[in-house]
């Protein structure tokens, strides 16, 4: 075991906290709290990125960090918050069924992602290589959130979490994608979040609720 600098330890610490926010999202039923957690995850992500930039002397990463902070920690949460208020969902809570099982499943997914990225971690020489597994876990936990929840807002938060995980993966495994790609992805995320907002209004107008479960008209064949 070689001694590691305190900064690297801090990066790992932050990565673990990002993972923790993903778990917390799965355990959280209130809309506002969900959005706040999502904002925290974005903030942690931005701080981690900035720290990686500092440790590895990659000035480009500061731009990514700023982009993340602006988009995922401020703009999108603000936008979602406004939507929730506008749709009158402030006091909406979701019924969480079998939540301990889901959380155990989430832990299993984390283990799974650890094994999946093992070959990459072994090849990598970056200080952030151990974080790759965490980033995949964040992606998969976002996916889990989309699968187990029924509220449109929650599903969107899950979707955005997956995006967070992807960004994290890029930072952890390669110190970020080329700038043009990163900007493109950020643009897509921005447009997606606006479209989600439009969709909330449409869904509410059409089924008078934001329970995606009620969207079940389309089935196969004979009914």
């Amino acid at each position, binding site marked *: 075991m070689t001694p590691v600098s305190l900064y690297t330890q801090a990066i790992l610490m932050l990565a673990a906290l990002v993972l923790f926010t993903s778990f917390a999202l799965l355990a959280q039923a209130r809309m506002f709290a969900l959005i706040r957690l999502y904002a925290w995850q974005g903030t942690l992500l931005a701080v981690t990125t900035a720290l990686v930039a500092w440790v590895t002397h990659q000035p480009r990463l500061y731009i990514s960090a700023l982009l993340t902070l602006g988009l995922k920690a401020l703009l999108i949460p603000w936008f979602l918050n406004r939507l929730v208020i506008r749709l009158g969902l402030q006091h909406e809570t979701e019924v969480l069924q079998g939540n301990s099982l889901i959380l155990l499943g989430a832990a299993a997914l984390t283990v799974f992602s650890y094994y999946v990225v093992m070959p990459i971690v072994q090849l990598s020489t970056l200080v952030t290589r151990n974080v790759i597994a965490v980033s995949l876990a964040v*992606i998969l936990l976002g996916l889990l959130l989309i699968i187990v929840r029924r509220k449109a807002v929650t599903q969107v938060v899950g979707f955005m979490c997956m995006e967070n995980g992807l960004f994290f993966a890029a930072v952890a495994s390669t110190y970020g994608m080329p700038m043009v790609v990163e900007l493109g*992805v950020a643009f897509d995320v921005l447009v997606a979040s606006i*479209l989600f907002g439009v969709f909330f209004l449409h869904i509410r107008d*059409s089924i008078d609720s934001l329970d995606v479960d009620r969207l079940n008209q389309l089935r196969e*064949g004979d009914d």
Partner: protein
Amino acid sequence: MNPPADAVYPMLLIPLVGVIALGVIGHSRRAGWVNIAISAATFVASLRLALGVLKHGPLLTTSKMFYIDSFNVYLLVLTAFVGLTTAIFSRTYMLDEMKLGRVSTKRLQLYHAMYQGFLLTMLLALSTNNLGILWVAMEGATLATVLLVSLYRTPESIEAAWKYFILCGVGIAQALFGTVLLFFAAQRVVRNRHQALLWNILYAHAAYLDPAVMGLAFVFLLVGYGTKVGLVPLHNWLPDAHSEGPTPISAVLSGLLLNVALYALVRIKMLADPTLGALPGELMMGFGMLSFIVAVLFLHRQRDIKRLYSYSSIEHMGLMTFGFGVGGALATFAALLHMTVHSLTKSSIFVTAGHAAHIAGSQSIDRIRGLIRTQPAVGWGLLIGTVAIAGFPPFGIFTSEFLLLVATMQSWPWLTIPLLIGLVVALAGLFRQVQPMVYGEAMPDQRPTRTSMVPVVVHLALVLWLGLAIPAFLAQWFNHATFLISGSSLP
């Protein structure tokens, strides 16, 4: 500067201008014509580019951002062409929808702008040299079309759009993770990190990429882009999105989006092949075969005309994926040809299906009866289109399916049996449903509609032509592309 390669810029700029222009004037009655004009200009630009490739071989812009070789150039032309013909169809169709009161002027504006936006993302995805941009464009295609799927704002269409959005978004996220892994693998080989996602650079270094990482990356990319191709079991969004959106959108989704997603997948396979050996091909064969069989069985259960044909799309995408998976010159050639003819045929079928639905006032197969009596052009169009898609000679689909069967016979003989059975079952499924729609007694409340059969006639004529003889320059492109993809070409 590199003049032949720079022809790519007007091809991308024209639809971009189109998005802005139609965003402003898309609600006017003349917007349909503007849409056609822009699509025509794009088509001309793509032809110019194609000529350049024909003369100079593969083109790379000076910025290295765009790379055109014989594989994507024919898809570019095809995309621009189907975009144009569908725009012609969409003018009358959308005017009709306006008259029926199903869309407001505001939504028409959105529709026109996003139609061009969709074409832009398709062309960008095809022409870019950067795999990251490819991803951005694929996601952009979802974003551009998702509001079009829910254009009618019925609960069903909103449900379809939501499913489309979430499923494709989730799927494509896996592809981005795969891209990150690919970038990781490339960074260990390519010195300049700014070039490590450029396809032509990666292709040159493909043999040195780390197999373990490439294996992972390929699986993630297969799942990601496979969702967009509509591979089973990731296909759930496809029938919904196709059936609930406006018909021109169904036509371009089926004819273009699926193709471009498959294109992305094949590009990735080309990178993975040197290090992974047979694995990518076998995975694609597996997914392709599964999609083919499941879709064929589901064909029989459909009650909605557009769902019926969207399952047929899954079936054909499965066949193409299978074909690319089999590999080798013959199968690859067949799959490339199949991409072309399926795209042409399927978009023409969606055009006629849209007309048929207007005539009957419903998309339900039970309500569409006796089309040949009510409006012979639509009836015959649907019948001939179905004959073509089912793989009857002398249409092009017969040629490509025949080649694919021969190729399968050569390398995986026992797999020809499920393929043959599947094709027969698909044929039965299609004709069982189409026969009463086309013949049979007309329903009393059916009314003839304003049609634009030009796209149908042109597309089916082209498919017929490709079935009878493939023109030399096209054969040369296909052969080049086959060589690029499979490493060998047809004699």
